[in-house]
């Protein structure tokens, strides 16, 4: 019972955050609500006994990605006061039907498969040590690839984000 309530609370937080993130007008509010949704998901992961992933989710999504989004919103502040912003009003008539359609398909298929109504296997835990060992043995290639990818992404982000030499640098 307690689990059920906790799940419902977390799910409500997540969904509310997600809906608010997509619907609010103020970009900063959107970003913060998205952070709330990510945090709610982290709580759900913790409920599902995925401690490590839950903390990683919190660390990366709330601690890094949400901050990055907020930062971008601030750096593109001028976007809200652009002339002709009216032409960029949200086109809900395009998005909502598509989203609803996909949602309906998914829900229908989930509801239609009785095998999905099952209870969790008992006493599951994922010790950090085991995760580490698996990462170093079975998943070592993906891990390395991810490392490479992240490095490439880092370099790419830096290169894209670099100021063109058009304006003079503040002397550093």
């Amino acid at each position, binding site marked *: 019972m307690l689990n*059920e309530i906790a799940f419902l609370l977390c799910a409500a937080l997540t969904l509310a955050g*997600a809906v608010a993130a*997509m619907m609010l007008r103020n*970009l900063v509010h959107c970003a913060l609500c998205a952070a709330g949704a990510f945090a709610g998901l982290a709580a759900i992961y913790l409920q*599902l006994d995925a401690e490590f992933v839950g903390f990683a989710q919190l660390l990366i999504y709330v601690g890094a990605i949400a901050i990055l989004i907020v930062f971008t919103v601030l750096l593109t502040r001028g976007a809200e006061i652009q002339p002709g912003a009216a032409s960029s009003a949200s086109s809900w008539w395009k998005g909502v039907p598509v989203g609803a359609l996909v949602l309906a398909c998914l829900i229908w298929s989930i509801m239609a498969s009785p095998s999905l109504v099952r209870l969790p296997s008992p006493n599951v835990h994922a010790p950090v040590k085991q995760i580490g060992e698996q990462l170093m043995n079975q998943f070592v290639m993906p891990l390395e690839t991810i490392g490479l990818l992240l490095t490439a992404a880092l370099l790419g982000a830096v290169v894209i984000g670099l100021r063109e030499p058009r304006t003079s640098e503040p002397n550093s």
Partner: protein
Amino acid sequence: MTPSLNQYLVLSALLFGIGLAGALARRNAVLVLIGLELMLNAANLNFIAFWRFGPHPEKLMGLMFVLFSIAIAAGEAALGLALVIAIYRHRRTAQVDRFDSLKG
């Protein structure tokens, strides 16, 4: 009583739907990225749920997928947002429908 698998899946589907609708509907590039992240998270939730309710939770497959997916999401967000900023610098706008220089 613990929630069953399909409840998690419904939550995930909802999240995906919200993310998709938002990403399609909103014009601001940052919001589109948030929508993408939400969809990614929905997928992650599926992985975790299937891992937890699956027959072999001790193998940690689902967890591993999610870990990698989170890592990729971080890279994606960094790159995507860098792109938004770069475009904003040139065009003074972050509205995706105004990035239309290549349109004939």
